[in-house]
Each structure stands twice: as structure tokens, then as C-alpha cells.
């Protein structure tokens, strides 16, 4: 979706201001909100692509006015209601008024090991890779209403395959489903001038990881 999250190349946000000796969390609610998002994620009620899309669907004015943990919290509440795990009335009351759904909490025991586990988004390939390093490709022009990992600032632009990353779960199809629909993933290099015209500096390059359905031969 062409949502407020797709920020690459936007103007007017001002300088980057880094906080000296920044703490990991700035308030206790950030700790708890972060942990709630993680805990629900580990129940398997949804996966990371569905979770990202829930955050992207925060209305644009709210998204831009919110801190990142506020966006996470908004996304979590959206998913809980959409998956019929709680009702909006229950969220408002902070109290359960209906029987729980069949969802088991992730126990504290064994969690440290789970967080350190070596998982992978790579899947067996169903077909050979269409492109090879050095091939010129164009990012397709598309404006899907659903989740996509193809940012607006490269759509229609031509780049070069820099590397093949493997065959990976395809978020655009996986979001909201259990269909991993794996596709070849490529590191694609775009010259700054091809993306930004006179504002792009010669020699500078932007690299994105894009899936085969995002690309066509150029």
C-alpha cells in the first residue's frame, strides 16, 4: 500500500537528531508494549508480515504523529480485534467480558533459547532464478492496496542485480495468509542519479533486496 510508512525520499522532516546515551526504552509502557507485541507474535496468532502491515495501516496523520512504540501498540490492538482475540469494548474497558479464544501464551520457560534460535526465511526453490548478477532489471510499476516490500521510490526505475540472496518467503503474498509463496530474492543496485536525477550524486548507489515478482528485464 502507498501508506505513510513508505518514507524513502520524502522531504520536510528536518534533521536527524540523535539522543546522547539513549536508553533502550524511554518509559515503562514502551517496555511492556514491546514485550506484548513480541509475546503475541510468538503465539503464532500471526506472523511478521501481517504484523508489519497492521502498523502500516495506521492512518497517515496518526502514523506521522506517533512514536514507533505507539505505532506498534496501535498495530497490536488492530490485530487483536481483527483476529477476534479481544473486542474493542474489552480493550476500552481493560477487562475481559467474553470467553477467550483458543490461544496459548508463550511461557517464560525456554524463551531465551527461542530468541536465540537460528531461523530462516529461505525456502527450497520451485524454479531456477530468472536473473543473474549483472543483469539490468526494472522495478515494476505497481500500486497494490495490500502489503508490499517494493518502495515507491524505486518503482519504474532501472537497476542492476548485484547478488542473488536465495529463495525467500514473499511478504507481499504471505501477509494475512499462511501462503509463504517463496520467490528468488535479489540485491538490486540503483545509481543515485537514476533515482533522484540531479539531486543524486554520481557514484553513490542505493541497494534494495527485491523479490522476482517485483522485477522485469530492462
Amino acid at each position: 500500500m502507498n501508506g505513510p510508512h513508505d518514507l524513502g525520499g520524502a522531504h520536510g522532516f528536518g534533521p536527524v537528531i540523535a539522543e546522547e546515551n539513549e536508553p533502550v526504552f524511554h518509559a515503562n509502557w514502551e517496555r511492556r508494549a514491546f514485550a506484548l507485541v513480541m509475546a503475541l507474535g510468538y503465539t503464532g496468532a500471526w506472523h511478521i508480515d501481517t504484523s508489519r502491515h497492521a502498523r502500516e495501516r495506521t492512518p497517515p496523520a496518526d502514523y506521522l504523529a506517533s512514536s514507533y512504540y505507539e505505532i506498534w501498540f496501535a498495530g497490536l490492538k488492530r490485530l487483536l480485534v481483527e483476529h477476534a482475540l479481544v473486542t474493542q469494548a474489552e480493550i476500552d474497558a481493560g477487562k475481559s467480558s467474553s470467553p477467550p479464544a483458543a490461544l496459548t501464551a508463550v511461557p517464560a520457560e525456554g524463551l531465551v533459547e527461542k530468541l536465540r534460535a537460528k531461523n530462516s526465511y529461505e525456502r527450497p526453490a520451485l524454479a531456477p532464478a530468472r536473473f543473474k548478477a549483472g543483469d539490468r532489471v526494472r522495478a515494476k510499476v505497481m500500486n497494490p492496496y495490500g502489503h508490499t516490500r517494493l518502495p515507491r521510490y524505486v518503482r519504474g526505475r532501472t537497476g542492476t542485480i548485484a547478488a542473488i540472496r536465495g529463495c525467500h518467503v514473499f511478504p507481499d503474498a504471505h501477509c494475512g495468509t499462511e501462503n509463504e509463496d517463496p520467490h528468488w530474492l535479489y540485491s538490486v543496485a540503483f545509481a543515485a542519479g537514476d533515482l533522484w536525477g540531479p539531486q543524486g550524486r554520481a557514484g553513490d548507489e542505493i541497494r534494495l533486496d527485491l523479490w522476482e515478482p517485483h522485477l522485469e528485464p530492462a
Partner: protein
Amino acid sequence: MASHDHSYLSDMEVRVRALETLLTEKGYVDPAALDVFIDTYETKVGPRNGARVIARAWADAKYRKWLIEDATAAIASLDFAGRQGEHMVAVENTRDTHNMVVCTLCSCYPWAVLGLPPVWYKAPPYRARAVADPRGVLADFGVTLPETTAIRVWDSTAEMRYLVIPMRPAGAEDWSQERLAELVTRDSMIGTGLALSPTEAAS
């Protein structure tokens, strides 16, 4: 403004607590598990992990080669595998090329080696400008590169996670890996900063 900020945060405190109570009552979360998530990312997993990887790469040419060829395995060998570090790529800064990492679409960041991202990494100014005006962003961080250095920006659009290998500063040739790690800042591994010189580290 200050009192407004204060009441605003309190409001979030109340809302998050209410949701935690509801989800606990439903049996969807184990409060003890929440504490494990928080403790892991507040006190255990952070940029000192990444600094040890970089120090090893500076001191050990064989490890550096492995890190560049297969970062996931090379990092796992130091016991830093885990969530948001499933597919690692290490990119090396040189005189000719400076690397910088961003996630324009959300906040993808190599948690396993750097911990949770700082606020600026997740906020619109950085996500908007890193890909279009990387030199302007570096200026915000007080960094100026030589005219002849090209910039390569990595937008983390998939589950590949990037770790920048900063250039090794001069004056630390005979240092141990433990001391070298002190020169490796979080920002130098994102590409918005450079590694500290021994003089900077001492001050």
C-alpha cells in the same frame, strides 16, 4: 509543553497496562515471559555484541574474510545468532566506499548484533533522507567523508540484515580485541558514524 508530555506518557502507561491486564486475563500472555523479552533486549543483546564481531574482524584476517563471505555463520560462531539476525550481510567500509544502513519502510535492524534500534533510526527524518541525501544525514551526525568516497546505502526491504564493518582507526595496531571493541560505536556499525580513534576513545 513539559506537563503536556508528562500527561501524554501517563495516558500511554494506563492504556498499555490495561491491555496487558486484559491479555493476561484471557490467558494469551504469561507476564513472566514479558519480563524475559524486556530483560533480553534491555540488558543482554546490544551493540557490544556487534563490537566484538568487528574487533575480531579487524584483528583476524581469516575471520574478516569469513564474515564478508558468510556473515550469518561467522556471527553465529561468536554465539550472537537469533531474532532479527537470521540472514546477516557484513559490508566493509574502505577509502572508496562508505556503507550506510536504513529501513525506509519500517525499522528493520540487526537486533542480534546491535540490539533494538535507537529512536532516530525508526523516525521519519532518517528513513526519508538516508536513501536520497546520505551526505546530509552524515552531516547531521558530524561526519564528513572525503570527496572521492562513494556512498552505498542499504535499504533493508527483506529479512537480510546489514552490519557495517567500519574502517580500523590508525594508532591501535597492537591492541587486543577487547580494547579494539571499545573503538567500535553503534553508529559506526550502522554507517552513520566512524570508529573512534584511540585519542577519541580516551577522552
